[in-house]
């Protein structure tokens, strides 16, 4: 019978887990069945059909589409559910499968392990096998799953905006390729972004050979490549630097947001957390110095932070260089002479640089100096010079040979040749230049000068308007490809699902960049899988190619493909030249009048590429806690000077261009500086991203991509009712409450119990046990969690991991402004200023602390006893579990929750259209979007309807799966205790810092039990006697006592002690005193 579901290929002799759908689809029986399905199916439907036959056809269709009917709601879903009539061999319905792949990002990639359910990718994890180690992921990677199921993706091949058949595009490109080949590619311009794919390099080489006269351009709106470019300049060959923040004892950052917006931030966060560890062997945590203008995540985690206007950072960096030079007693040479003028333009008023330099000199070979992508080359070279002179290269900063980048020009050159009429055909491979191009290029008109514009596009956007041909780009989860991770390892990108919009064969859904380039070049091999396979064969060298390929796909990387670190010699020539030429202009900039402006990469939407991703839009900015838009960041002092308040609409005028946006007063910002996040204010984008924020690109010129001077601001109007910004945290002070606890290293060494015991708020804890006798917790396991505040940097990857794992809905801007965000896990960010200073000045140089806050699983849970219907109850393993079906939504539990971690579904968020609030069951529904978005949901977790309360349960679904798996494995042995580490909640899995540890408290050797015995372990609000199962490990700062901003206590501790009656700083109670003490 032709309509039988296809048999899967015979089982392989060896483990072969990483099989793709594509592979499956190429088997002859499948193809045969596929071809025959429609005629036969149609025929069968015409004849009298038996019920059984009908079910067979339908279930086969469902299998083909890979449609899983996940997401059952609290109530019975309305959709018809048809079971498999025949289950494919080797397929366990409901059991997730994992595939290794990678997410390419600019010049790097994030290795991933992706969970698929019924053929749908639903959850992204880091690939623990990868040589980079278990570094978790970042928020972008977690959220990328939503981009896959974005209903606003470009779905059709278009010509002049009209949909065409894919074949038309294929024919057109084939004829063009012949024409270009004849003309040796003259008149052809190819514009791309940064990519790390070896296959793409290889294809490009082939194209260059075929079209030697074609010109290649590169445009990356926020280019992080300068770290490599500076290494190449400083060390004389193409190199990629890799830092060892875990080994460096002293780290100085020149505006490098390593923990946030630099390339591979998740790696640096991982290393940073290791470097900050308080080991039993008495090794001190690393010390982090940051010079910056914005308040970044790195600055927020710094021990010492010097905030400066952007134009003064180069001078301060030079000053630091000079101080190191002076204190190390190095002889004057050409380098010192070259930097002298620049160094002198920063006076170092409180000898911040001098003391920082002393610390560096004292830890030679164990320190690290990094410059950020916003800094000019001179600063990068100064950092390299310091690293070289302090003996750090090869120790705390490694360099490895990178593939020599082919010569490519930038966007200004392309615009010039377009205007000169030299470009006949423009091929745009990545990005959205009409939106991201520097404002002074007038790119839109320039793009129209090309006769033909052919573009591979992920969505309809600003650039689409001036494109002749648009080819839908595949998402990386649908693509064959490859990439190099930051350490140089070749990593696989393989499809986990057929292209969503490509019909049954997936052929018409779009092209990958490899296929696109291959078609542009008219290459013989255009199938991306074969292209990648060829590349891997070349890279892997000798050996069993089939085996290697299989291993490569299984592991997700090509073992041993990372180049060994090089040890090139320092070559001062280029640096000297750069410093000589730049010193004058940099010194002049430092003295320039007017407000200064920093354009920065956004933590949520990157350079604008994630604007239509609801998860990222709703992810609170780690620092400002703003969602759904950007604001004009301004320091408290500057705001007072200009008489500005929060949300005031102001207009910025810079070099004759203006832009309008709301003011956000950001503590810790450099004075006289405006921080403008790029990526918002899109004119043409999907329904999610429309109308969010203002467009800072409109002020950005090619000459000043990262910072500019001479801005003027003008108040447009005071905020009205509609101007309220959706911010998830209104109040940033701790109010002297020891919720987040910290101590300085010296205090901690002298008195390890300081943070946990002596804050003395616990005096209000009731002396005796409660009157109510709680039922004993008798489960085999007793779950608990520990969160290390010393490791957490606030990056928010966990927030998105939780959202993705637990089907947490997005609520939209208006609802966030109403305080109804649904995140089960949030990161609280508090500022602490010097409490002895007037309130006005406390926001100038605040210390920042982050605290991940989720359900604490209280043993005496205050939410439980107030629920009238038993919807939230305790299980015997200590979890506070929710029965969503039982909840009627009194919200009493949320009121009584001291941590405010319960989230209420005020509307049917899961049923709302993309761009509107849910308007009740009778409101019209958009036809397809909901179905598509439902695919992103995790079928292991209930989708909650409106009117019910929801919250974190330590990923109870993962706990249950692990327990079931353990029971099956135990068999008759009866050993059903789940081993430590077998259960990793989504937040812990995503955390690059490994700050979140989950485990069994009844096992004294589990990681979480060990952490809970640490001296700095405490529980938030313990005096309420709710007995939370989550504990926190106090943060230990490591300030340098010689620095001008040194203070004995961290300010939050100082504030708490000052407010405590009789508790004067320095009179903290002795260590080891039990909390409370009755």
């Amino acid at each position, binding site marked *: 019978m032709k309509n039988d579901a296809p048999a899967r290929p015979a089982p392989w002799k060896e483990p072969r887990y990483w099989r793709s759908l594509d592979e499956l689809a190429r088997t002859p029986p499948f193809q045969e069945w596929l071809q025959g399905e429609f005629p036969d199916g149609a025929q069968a439907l015409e004849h009298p059909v038996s019920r059984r036959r009908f079910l067979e056809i339908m279930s086969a269709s469902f299998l083909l589409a890979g449609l899983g009917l996940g997401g059952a709601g609290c109530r019975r879903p309305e959709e018809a559910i048809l079971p498999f009539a025949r289950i494919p061999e080797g397929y366990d319905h409901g059991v997730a499968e994992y595939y290794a792949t990678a997410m390419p990002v600019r010049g790097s990639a994030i290795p991933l392990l992706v969970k698929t359910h019924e053929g749908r990718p639903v959850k992204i994890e880091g690939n623990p096998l990868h040589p980079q180690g278990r570094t978790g992921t970042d928020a972008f990677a977690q959220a990328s799953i939503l981009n896959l199921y974005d209903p606003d993706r470009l779905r059709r091949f278009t010509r002049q905006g009209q949909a065409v058949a894919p074949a038309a595009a294929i024919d057109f490109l084939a004829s063009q390729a012949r024409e270009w080949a004849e003309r040796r590619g003259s008149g052809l311009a190819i514009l791309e972004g940064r990519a790390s794919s070896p296959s793409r390099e290889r294809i490009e080489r082939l194209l260059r050979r075929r079209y030697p006269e074609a010109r290649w351009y590169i445009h990356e709106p926020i280019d992080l490549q300068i770290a490599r470019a500076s290494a190449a300049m400083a060390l004389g060959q193409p190199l990629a630097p890799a830092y060892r923040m875990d080994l460096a004892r002293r780290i100085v950052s020149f505006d490098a947001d390593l923990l946030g917006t630099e390339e591979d931030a998740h790696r640096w966060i991982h290393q940073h957390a290791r470097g900050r560890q308080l080991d039993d062997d008495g090794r001190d945590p690393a010390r982090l110095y940051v010079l910056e203008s914005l308040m970044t995540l790195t600055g927020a985690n710094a021990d010492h932070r010097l905030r400066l206007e952007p134009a003064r950072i180069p001078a301060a960096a030079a000053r630091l260089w000079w101080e190191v030079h002076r204190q190390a007693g190095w002889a004057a040479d050409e380098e010192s002479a070259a930097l002298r003028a620049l160094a002198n333009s920063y006076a170092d008023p409180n000898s911040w640089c001098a003391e920082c330099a002393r610390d560096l000199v004292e830890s030679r070979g164990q320190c690290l100096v990094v410059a950020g992508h916003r800094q000019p080359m001179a600063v990068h070279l100064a950092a390299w010079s310091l690293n070289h002179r302090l003996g750090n290269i090869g120790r705390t900063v490694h360099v490895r040979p990178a593939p020599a980048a082919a010569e490519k020009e930038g966007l200004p050159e392309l615009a010039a040749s377009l205007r000169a009429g030299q470009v006949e055909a423009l091929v745009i491979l990545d990005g959205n230049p009409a939106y991201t191009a520097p404002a002074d290029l007038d790119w839109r008109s320039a793009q129209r000068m090309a006769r033909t514009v052919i573009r591979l596009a992920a969505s309809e956007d600003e650039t689409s308007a001036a494109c002749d041909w648009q080819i839908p780009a595949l998402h990386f989860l649908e693509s064959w490809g490859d990439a190099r991770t930051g350490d140089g390892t070749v990593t696989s990108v393989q499809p986990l699902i057929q292209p969503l919009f490509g019909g049954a064969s997936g052929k018409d859904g779009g092209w990958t960049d490899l296929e696109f380039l291959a078609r542009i070049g008219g290459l013989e091999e255009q199938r991306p899988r074969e292209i990648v396979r060829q590349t891997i064969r070349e890279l892997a060298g000798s050996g069993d190619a089939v085996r290697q390929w299989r291993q490569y796909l299984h592991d997700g990387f090509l073992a041993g493909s990372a180049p060994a670190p090089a040890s090139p010699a320092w070559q001062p020539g280029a640096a000297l030249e750069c410093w000589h030429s730049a010193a004058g202009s940099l010194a002049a900039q430092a003295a320039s009048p007017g407000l200064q402006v920093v354009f920065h990469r956004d933590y949520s939407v990157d350079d604008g590429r994630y604007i239509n991703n609801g998860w990222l839009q709703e992810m609170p900015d780690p620092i400002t806690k703003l969602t759904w838009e950007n604001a004009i960041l301004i320091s408290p002092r500057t705001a007072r000077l200009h008489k500005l308040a929060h949300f005031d609409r102001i207009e910025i005028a810079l070099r004759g261009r203006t832009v309008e946006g709301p003011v956000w007063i950001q503590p810790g910002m450099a004075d006289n500086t405006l921080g403008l996040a790029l990526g918002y204010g899109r004119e043409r984008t999907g329904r999610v991203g429309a109308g969010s924020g203002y467009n800072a690109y409109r002020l950005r010129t090619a000459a000043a991509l990262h910072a500019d001077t001479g801005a003027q601001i003008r108040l447009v109007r005071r905020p009205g009712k509609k101007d309220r910004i959706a911010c998830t945290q209104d*109040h940033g002070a701790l109010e002297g409450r020891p919720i987040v606890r910290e101590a300085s290293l010296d205090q901690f060494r002298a008195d390890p119990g300081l943070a946990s015991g002596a804050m003395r708020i616990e005096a209000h804890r009731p002396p005796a046990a409660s009157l109510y006798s709680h039922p004993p917790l008798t489960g085999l396991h007793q779950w608990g969690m520990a969160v290390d505040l010393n490791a957490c940097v606030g990056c928010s990857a966990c927030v998105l991991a939780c959202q993705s794992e637990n089907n947490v809905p997005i609520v939209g801007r208006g609802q966030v402004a109403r305080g109804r965000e649904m995140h089960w896990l949030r990161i609280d960010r508090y500022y602490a200023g010097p409490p002895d200073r007037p309130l006005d000045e406390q926001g100038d140089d605040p210390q920042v602390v982050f605290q991940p806050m989720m359900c604490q699983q209280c043993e005496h849970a205050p939410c439980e006893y107030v629920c009238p219907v038993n919807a939230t109850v305790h299980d015997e393993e200590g979890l506070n579990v929710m029965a969503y079906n039982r909840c009627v939504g009194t919200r009493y539990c949320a009121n009584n929750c001291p941590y405010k971690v319960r989230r209420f579904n005020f509307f049917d968020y899961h049923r709302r259209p993309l761009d509107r609030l849910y308007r009740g069951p009778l409101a019209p529904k958009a036809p397809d979007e909901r179905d598509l978005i439902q695919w992103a949901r995790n079928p292991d977790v209930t989708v909650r309807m409106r009117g019910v309360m929801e919250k974190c349960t330590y990923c109870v679904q993962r706990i249950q799966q692990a327990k079931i798996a353990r029971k099956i494995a135990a068999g008759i042995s009866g050993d059903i205790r789940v081993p430590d580490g077998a259960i990793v909640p989504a937040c812990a899995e995503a955390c690059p810092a490994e700050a979140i540890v989950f485990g069994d408290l009844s096992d004294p050797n589990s990681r979480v039990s060990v952490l809970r015995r640490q001296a700095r372990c405490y529980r938030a609000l313990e005096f309420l006697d709710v007995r939370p199962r989550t504990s926190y490990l106090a943060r230990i700062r490591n300030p340098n006592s010689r620095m001008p901003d040194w203070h004995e206590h961290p300010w939050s501790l100082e504030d708490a002690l000052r407010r405590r009656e009789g508790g004067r700083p320095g009179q903290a109670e002795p260590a080891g005193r039990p909390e409370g003490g009755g």
Partner: protein
Amino acid sequence: MAALRSQPLVAPDPPAELARPPLILNRRGTAWISGKVSGIAEGRAPRWWWAAFLPSAGLTALCFAMIAYLVSTGIGVWGLDCTVGWAWDITNFVFWIGIGHAGTLISAILFLLRQPWRTSISRAAEAMTLFAVICAAIFPVIHLGRPWDCWWLFPIPNANAIWPQFRSPLTWDVFAISTYFVVSLMFWYVGMIPDLATLRDRARTRARKLVYGLLAMGWTGSIRHWRHYEKACLLLAGLSTPLVLSVHSIVSFDFAASLLPGWHTTIFPPYFVAGAIFSGMAMVLTLLIPIRTLCGLEDVITVLHIDRMGKVLLAAGSMVGYAYAIEWFTARYSGSPHEIFAWENRAFGPYAWAYWTMLACNAISPQLLWLRRVRRSMAAVFLLSIAVNVGMWLERFVIIVTSLHRDFLPSSWSYFRPTLVDIGTLAGSLGLFLTLFLLFIRFLPMIAMAEIKGAAARSGARAHGDPDPPGGLSG
């Protein structure tokens, strides 16, 4: 017996300065009372009634429209957020429940305390109680996320075999309020039977005869009926009296049993009861002062009544004021920074406007009632009663919202702003209340005729030196 009869006991008249003031002015006789009170329910509706009824009915429609919108769309149409889980919904609930206390207080406690002046106002106050409890009962249902599942709060055997959670104060609420409603309804209805019989007897149309006949349950006025009636009233009064105290105590447990600073307070039960009596009395005054004039009942609901209710208002207001002071004291005395903060935040935080308005309305304005002139001025008492109503609504708002909006973790602090639907629901519930009350005075005996005849005759007789009062209720 015979000996007693032969020497009739004549109580001496009290001296003039000790004479009780008459409960019914102008020596109105029983026929006048029957005619006057029944007349309100019998004749054509006066113009003022329509003028009051139509807007009230409009507001009632608004109430139902708001509820329909709320239920179809979600609780999010109100201004609540994840920090402030309760705001106007529970404020309105406690406000209405509080108002529902005056009727039973007047009918039951004053009945047991033998205060005959209560008879003029008891029926209207009891009716007001019922209507207020109806208004109150709406809110716990519609404030649920899934109101269609509200029956899960009742101990109804079901297939899930899940019982309500008896540790939750919300479950206690269900029992307290439903008991209170049932007992109040019975008390009200039983007390009304003789008067319904009067209306039946006076009815001219067949429909009225039928309806009032059914409602009067065959009352003939026989001595057996009177005897049962008296016993039932006494028993129900005895049953109601603890309920007056318990219902609002249990409502206060919604807050007191939590661990939130500002809620977690042992003073709440007496404080809430005092507040409830206070607000209930104020609402009785708000309703009766205009009605007394509009229905021409100045002789029945006299200045004396208003004066005495003013005194109750003063006493309750002072108790409430004392509770406010004690709240401050306990917060300071506890030494707990969270408790101190909760109080300071109430008084000086973003909702300070609500706190000080509440204080002015509830604790300060009633002090004017020390003045006899104020107590006897209808306009002044009416204005004061309005102020107290506003103040008591604000009191619940202050307790609920200021405690919630800034609790333990500063990261979750928020500021509640009502939406139009919040406002519409409150206005609508007010409309529903007024509509029910207007229907009540239009169709049912608004004054307890039978009781007042007895009480009036007795006190009136005493006042006029008649040694043998005719008839009587408690003879």
